[in-house]
Structure formats: structure tokens, C-alpha cells
């Protein structure tokens, strides 16, 4: 689990200045996903710098965002749709994390809080992009957060528990941003060929 987290962080820490895959819709979506991946990793880094005890805390508790189990390997389109759904849940979690943090500690202006706002905007942007990319006449996609903020979501266990929960949310964001990058990369490869990857 810890290795997986480290791998995710390392992948996420790739510079956002890596070559962008062209101007096609999937290319743009892939670029956005990569940017989100970097920013989520950076956000996690800033948070663990702020709450230092989390830096040595391995991820646990399983996935917060879950998709229906599927035994078959989905095709790229379907994988991208599943990714889109996961990102909606991530957006919901992020909304909750922001709301709970502001309720608990007020609105700050630290680097973490600034980047947290940026990630939210970026995630919403990616959702809009992937919606336009994947939506068909038969399949309608939403971009609104898919999780409501309640005690069941964040546990309402006080400030310390909120920190632990927020940490899990950030790990989840990193994971699904990485997943989105991979899914969009496959989709881009399928749609645009090997060029511009």
C-alpha cells in the first residue's frame, strides 16, 4: 500500500511542463489530467508539510471512491467513463473537505489552501472536458459532485479525525488523478493513434 502511494506520488510529481499531447479533445483532456495529477500530488505534499504527523502515516482504510466491480477489462471509452464517475466522487470529497476545513479552521491563505482551490477548479474543468469527450446521445454525464457532505462522509470526529480524513481524500485525489491520466492516455491513443502522445 505504501509502495503504491509512493509510486502514485512520484508519478504525480512529474512536472506539468511535460509535452502536451496536441490540440485534440482527448489530448487536451489528457493534458488537464496530467496537470491535475501534478497539482494533487503537490497538494498532498503541502498538506503533509502542514500536518507533519501524516508524512509517516501510511494510507489505510481502502478506497473512498469505489466503482462497481467489473470482471471484464473495460474498453477505453468505458474506462474513461468510469474514471469520470470516480472524479465526480473525488470532487464531492474535495468539496466536503474544503467545507469542513473552513468550518473548523476558517478561511486561510496558505499555499495549501490556495492550491486546494486550484485543484477544485481544475477537477471541475477536467470533468467538463471529459464529459464533452465521452458524452453521447445515449450516455449522459454529469459534472456535479457526487457525494454529499454529511457525518457519514467525513466521520465528524473532531479536528484530528478531520485531518486524517482529509489526508485520505487527498490520497484518493492523487490516485484518481493518476487513474484519469492513464485512462485518458489510452483513450487518446485509441482515438488519435500513437501520434502526439
Amino acid at each position, binding site marked *: 500500500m505504501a509502495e503504491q502511494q509512493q509510486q502514485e506520488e512520484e508519478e504525480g510529481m512529474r512536472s506539468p511542463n511535460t509535452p502536451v499531447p496536441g490540440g485534440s479533445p482527448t489530448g487536451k483532456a489528457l493534458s488537464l489530467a496530467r496537470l491535475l495529477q501534478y497539482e494533487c500530488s503537490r497538494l498532498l505534499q503541502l498538506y503533509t508539510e*502542514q*500536518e*507533519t*504527523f501524516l508524512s*509517516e*502515516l*501510511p494510507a*489505510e482504510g481502502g478506497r473512498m471512491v469505489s466503482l462497481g466491480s467489473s470482471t471484464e477489462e473495460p474498453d477505453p471509452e468505458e474506462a474513461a467513463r468510469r474514471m469520470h464517475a470516480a472524479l465526480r466522487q473525488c470532487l464531492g470529497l474535495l468539496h466536503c473537505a474544503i467545507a469542513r*476545513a*473552513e*468550518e*473548523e*479552521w*476558517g478561511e*486561510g491563505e*496558505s499555499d495549501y489552501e490556495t492550491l486546494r482551490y486550484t485543484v477544485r477548479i481544475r477537477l471541475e474543468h477536467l470533468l467538463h472536458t471529459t464529459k464533452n469527450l465521452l458524452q453521447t446521445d445515449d450516455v449522459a454525464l454529469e459534472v456535479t459532485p457526487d457525494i454529499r457532505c454529511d457525518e457519514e462522509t467525513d466521520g465528524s470526529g*473532531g*479536528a*484530528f479525525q478531520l*485531518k*486524517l480524513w482529509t489526508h485520505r481524500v487527498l490520497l484518493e485525489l492523487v490516485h484518481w488523478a493518476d487513474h484519469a491520466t492513464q485512462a485518458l492516455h489510452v483513450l487518446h491513443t485509441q482515438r488519435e493513434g500513437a501520434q502526439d502522445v
Partner: protein
Amino acid sequence: MPQLQTRRWPVWLICCLLSVVHTHAQNDATVPQQVKVTPDMRTQQISISWLGGSATLFDVMILRTELNETVFYNQVQATFNQTTGRYEWNWTSAEPLECTSLSVRIRSRRGAVTSEWSSTQILQGNDLPTIANYQMYPEERIVRTGGSTTFCCIVAEGGVFGSVQYGKTAMNATRLSRRSYSITVTHQAPSNRTGTNVVCTDALEKTKLSGTAVFVGYPPLLSDFHCETRDLTSAVCQWKEARDTRLYGKRRTVYSLNKRKCQKAGLGENLMTCSAEHWEGNWTLEAANALGRDSISDSAEIRHRVRPVAPANLSAVVYAWNATLRWNWGYDAYNSLPLVCQVELNFHENKTKRTYTSVGLTTLRLSELYPNEKYSVKVRCGAQQNFWKWGNWSQPLSFKTNIDVPDQPDVWMHINNDNSGQIIWKPLTARESHGPIASYEVTFWSPKENLQHTETLPPDTFMLPINVTRITAFTNDNQVVATVTAKNAAGYSPPASVIIPLRVADKSHIESRVAYMDGGFRLVWQDDSNSSCGYVIEWHDALCQQDCYLEWVKLAMGSTNASIESANFRPGVKYNISLFSCSSELLQYWQGYMQELAPSRSVPHLSIRQEDSNVFLTWEAMPEAHRRGYILGYNIYLNNDSQLVLLANLSGEESRKYTVKGLSKGTYKFTVKAFTSAGEDTGATISIRVDQLDDWLILNMLISLGTLALLLSIASFFCYRKRKWVKTAFCPDIPQPKLNDDWGRTQGPLDVRPSPHNLVHVVEKPELDSLKGVLVVIPEEDEEEADRIGDASVDTDEPASLRYYNQMIDERPVRPRSPDSSDSSSSSMDSGQTDVTYTGIQTSASSLGFHTDQRDSAEFGMAASGDGYRPQRQPASHNSLPIPPQSSQAACSGGYKPQSSWDLNSPGEAEEQERLAPCLGSPTSVASTQFLLPDGESEERGEEKRPLSASAAGWFTNLLSSAKP
């Protein structure tokens, strides 16, 4: 055994008595009943209450149940609650009550008598096996900065306690129970926004942990509280938090104004605000957070706290020189409010503020604006009466004023020496042009003849060349008036006139120097009654001769002084400053430097020449362009390469020559530096090799010696040709001596060798040689012959009859006869020798004893004592003369005595000197023409040259020494 029982009975008796006493005491102290323990987890306080007894003093024992460790055991004064009929006592635990179970029991005390302990009441902690997970207490505690807090960690069932960290600090834990561990943090520092984390981790599994966040901060502290009104109805109160409470979000400070909660206290630049719909006069602000509360009050009438809102809808009606501003307030209450308003006017880089007052001010007139100028204005106002604060600035308004006709140009003229000249005028600034200048018009007008000529010039022209000679050709008038007008879109400027004099003033007789003081040239003149329209002062670089860059200033009539200031003045530049009447008549003329500098170059054409031991330095005047100040003089230095030695300081610019006197032979370098009041120039250096005058002396001496040698050669030649006569005159034949007895042991010829000294000078002052015996030679020649000798002798002052003196020998070269012969005489005495001044050969009496034994000497002494002539003995190597046998007697009679003589250059001269020494001072007669007249060969060879050369050398040395300065 019975004996043993018998011995035990006293002990048993004592125990019984004690038991009776104790039973009696217990009967007096009632055992507490129905002990009840009520916890307050937040405050970590337990309230203990019980029934029974009349005692007011109780023993309370609190133990950690699991480890049976006493936490508290003491006598306490319980409070009796009349309502409940129970005794009550509170205890605060250092650890959170959740940390572990506590056991409580009580007994009553009456003096030393106590009751039985009550039944134990247990307050259950959260470390019960039924609560198996990790826990940390207290949860989300808010504590004051600097305080202390005890935290406890309850390890999960099956877990192993690892560590507890407070923030980034690992803490030492104390075990409270099987699963519970505590840490105590003291002097807690303020926490950050999200609190300080206290984390307890499992020793084996990192993922197993518990934790809490503690928020360390301050209670609120208020300052700078005041309320004001913007709309003359409502109130806006402001304050500052004197310190950051470090508590945010749901732990933030809550404010209430006059008991009404501030819904959202605005925060900007540490300034908090809270509004109220109506002005109440007295205001109290209360602030509270989890750590405490604070309050602050303010009281004022509403008219004393008016801070107007910003003027809205600001607009302007613009003209060339003024503008009218309008705005509105938005509140009717302002219409009756006396207001003071401030207008900030921005144009170019300037910013000015103007103040206006009126009741309900909504319009004002901005005057004294400049035409064709961009302005930006904004307005703010305050209450004129009981001014509180300025209101907010309005939004800035920009406008541009209209154009107007240009100002009158500033015109002047300058006539060069060649009658050329120019009409010049200063460019109009934006402030003066009042709009873009379209053109300039210059009109020449002859007042007497009423002739007029106009020229139109483009807007970027500020000068019109003129030729006075040509103008003079066209008019008979003494002067011509030039009028300049500027034109823009609004029209013509007022004309500016200048009179062109048709004759050039002579400046030479009115020049004077002027000093630069306090940032300007201070000029003073006498008022000229003819200059009824003022004066013009013009200045330019003095080096400029033609079409100079001119600056001028016009002064009002009656002015008698001015300070000429210009940003163009440069140090080291001489300026010509001229005062003109308004009719262009030159009244006065100055020259001056803003600041004098040292000359920029060295003096030109520095030259040097030598005369005798003096050198003359001359140079030319410093060129005007390089003076950079008034030349005050020159400094003359002797330049030793390493340093300059000041030889002279010449005052005056005209002092351009200098003589350095009395220089000895050598090479000299001289440096000449001109100096102004600011210092010296770099210096011009010139060198010269001074020839020693000794060379001239040597030359003169050589010439003299040559002349002397020539004369001697002539004399020698003459003597050679007339040698017979010379011999007759100086060396007459000596008559054959008559020997009366045997004059010597051997009858051979007397070997008389010449003295080592071949020069004999007969001392001319025989009286100085009084110590010496005198031998007088009485020649036997006739009087005529004696007279001839006297005439021909070099020593013309010698008496006719030659006298020979005994003498002391001086080896020194013969020196020319000195006027003070006593010197030579005395020196001769000192040396034990005597100079005999004579142009012959000197000999020594001692030589007589050179080849004779003691007896010979005695015989010689006898002869010397006699008077009359005695023949002299000669060495065999010289001309043999017959030795008269009676010579000793003749000598003794005071007559002629023979003397020995030998060649000066004979070997063994020094030895002979020594041998002769004992004979010095003995009376000796020497009389021999042989010695006095050497043979012709020796005469020609050296015996005349040696004294000559020696004499010349001595004279030369004397000259050298005397030539030295």
C-alpha cells in the same frame, strides 16, 4: 503452657481496652453513606457528594483503580448542601477523566477520630476492555498560551504503546493503567490555524494511532474602538484586535455590540467592523472566545462622528483657466450638513490640494487652472463642525482645459562684434503656449521712418539672424525695434519688443569682475534714469565670440542688483555678463567664474637658458581657454624627481620669468606651475645641464700657462744666446783659493754634491732669519760687473752683493712668492728647513759633512769661524774645483764658505736627506756660481720647467679653490 497463658493475659487486656476505646470513637464519627461521584469530562472535575454525620472534616482518598495508585488523599472541608442534605466536595484531576478509572472513598473525621471508610465508588475510565480501540484525551482542548495540559493515550487492546508526540516533540509518557499512558505539556506555545497535533502511535503498527488537536491561543484583547456614522443615521463601529488569538473557525472570537451579536465582523487590515442600524450614543463591544472575554466602550453624539461617504457621480464643466466640479451625496441629511471638502488636483507630476467649505456642498469652482492642461481630480469631504474624519475619496475625474492665446514671448537680441546679430526668444513652455504654437512672427520697425517688415517663422524656430550693417543701409534711424509674437489656434500672443541698436557698444572700459555667491553672480549697479522700462542682464561663455548661446533675464525698472542664476553655469568657465537698459544700451559689463578651477594645462613654451651660474626661466601666458580661473601667479619648483622644492612664488599673471642664481655644475629640472585660487596646473618641467665654470677657469689657466711658457721660452732663448753675458753677470770665475795648511786628510777634490733641493730662494727678508748665521758673499768682481749682475738678475730686489745664508732645506715645491712671505718663512721654520728665495739652486750646509769624517767637520767648523773668502768643496762628479787649504779659516772669518751641491735627481736623495739632517741649522757657507748657474744642458732640460710647472699648478689650485662658491 498454663504459665504461658498466665503471662499473656496483660496483653489481651490492653487489646480489649483499645478495642473499647476505638469502638467508642467510631460511634462518634459517622461513616459517609451513599457516596456519589459525578464527573465533568470537559473540566476534568468530579463532584463527590455523600450523606451522614455531623462532621465537617472528611478524609478523601482517590486512587487509580487499576494500579491502585493513590492520586489524592487528604483532609477536606466538605460543603453541606441544605437542599439535598448531602455533603459535597469537588476535585479536579490533572489527567482527563477518561484516561483511567478512579476509585473514591471517604471517611469522616472528628479530630483524631475517624470513621470507617465509605464504600468505594469507581469512576469508570475509557480504558475498560470493552472499549478496545486507540483513544486520546482530552479531545480538542483549547488552552491558553503558556499553560499546561496532560494528555493520555489509551492503547488499543492487544496493541503496544509506542510513543506520544506533541507537535514535533516526542514526549515522555507515564503509565496510568494497563492501557493508559499520559504526558504533560507545560508552557504551551501558540498553535497554528489547525491546532497542535498530539499523536500516540503503536510501537508495532504505524497505522494504529490515536490523536487529538489542541488549540493554544489567547483570549480576545480589544483596542481602538470607535463608532461613526456615514449616513447620519446608522452606526459603524470599528476596532482592532490587539493580538491574534490564534483561534479560528468555529473557535474564533465572537463579538457583540450593545449586546447584539455582530453577525459578521468585517476584517480588513486588522480592523474589525460591526454595524448598527441606529445611533445609540453609547456603545459597548464585547468579545469572547473559549479562553476568555474582553469589552471596550465608546460614547459620542452622532454629529461628532460624521465621516461622509465618497462624493458620487463627480463631473466637471471645463474652461481654459477654470472648471466647475459637481457631485451628489445620496443622503438627504447631507443637504443641511456643513461640509469641508478637499479637492486633490493632479497634473503632470504635480499634486495639489484645495479646500472648499459650504453647507451640503455639491459643486465648486476650480480656478487658476492652466489652459490646454490635463487634470485629474478627486474629492472628499468631512463635517465642517466637529470634524471627525475625512470621508472616502470620490472616484478620480480627468479632464483637459481649453486652449488660450500664448503668453508674450521673452525676446532679446545680441549683436556680435562684426555687426551680425540675432533676435532670440525663449521657447514657450506648455504653460506659456496655452496650446500648440502654430508660428512666430517677427516684425522689424523703424520708429522714425515708420518702416515695417514682418517675417513668419515655424514654431520650432527661436532665433532670427540679423545684420546690423544691412539694416543700417536701409534706414537712417539709430535703432530698429523687433517685435515677436507667438500664434496658436486661439490667436496671437501679446507682442514682445526689443530695440536693436545700430551701433555696437565698447565693452573694454566697463569690465569688472563679479563673484559667484550663494548660487548666483551677485550684480550691483546704479540705477540708470534712462532705463525707464527696466533692465536686461545677458550672459554667455566668455570664450564665445560669435552667435553665442545666450541667456538673459529681464528686470523691473529701478532694480539695482540681481543674482544671476542658471543651471547652465559650469565650473571653470568664464562668463561675460552684460547689463543693458531696456533700450539695449550696454550699461555695465562683468566677467566672472561660477567656480574657479586649476588651469587645465601647464604653462606654454617654457624655456630656459644659462648665464654663468644662473639660469633664466621664461614662459608664455596661459591660453584663455585653459585658465579656468584667474591666474594669480606662478610657482617655480626645483624638481628632484622625487619631490618639488618650491623656489619662488611669483604673484601676478604677468610675472612670467624667473632667474635661478648661483647654480653649481649639474643637471637641474625646474617645474613651473600656474595657479588660480583653485590650485595649480599640472606643471611644465624643463631641465638644464649647468656647465661648471671650472672649465672656463681651466681654459683660462691653460692660456695663462701657455703664455707663461712662451715667455719663459723667450727668456731661455735669450739667456742661451746671451749666455756669456749671463755667465759673466751671474757666474763670474772664482779665483783660485789659497790654501795655507793641510785642509784635509786627502788632497783630492772636494766632492760636493748638490742638495736634494735644486731650487733655492733667497729669503728676501733676512731679518726674519736672524737666528741663522749669515754668510755674506763678497764677490771680487769690479763694481761695474756687480752692477751688471744686479741689473740682469731675476731677483731684482737682491742687493748687488750676493749674500748666502745658511739655510734649512724644504722639499716642497717652490711656490711663487707670496706677498706675505712670513708664512712661507714660518712654515720653513716649522719643518726645520728654510726656503731660500732665489732663482738658483739651493744647497745645504749639511752636505758639507756628507763625505767628511768628524775631523773634517771640526776642521770645517774652524774654517767657518774665520772671516774672508773660503773655497767651496764640490763632489767629484761635478765640476772639480781646486779646494783651498785654508778654507776653514776663511769660513770662520765670516767670509765665503764653500758649499756642497749635487743634482736634484741624484739617486739616494732621501737617504742623504736623512744623513744631512743632523747638520741642519749649523752655519754653512755656500758660495758657488756653479750652483747658481747650471750648465746649459740642465738649464734647458728641466731645472727651469719644474719650478714653472709647480708654480702653475699651485696657481691653478688656488684658482680652483677660489672659484668654488
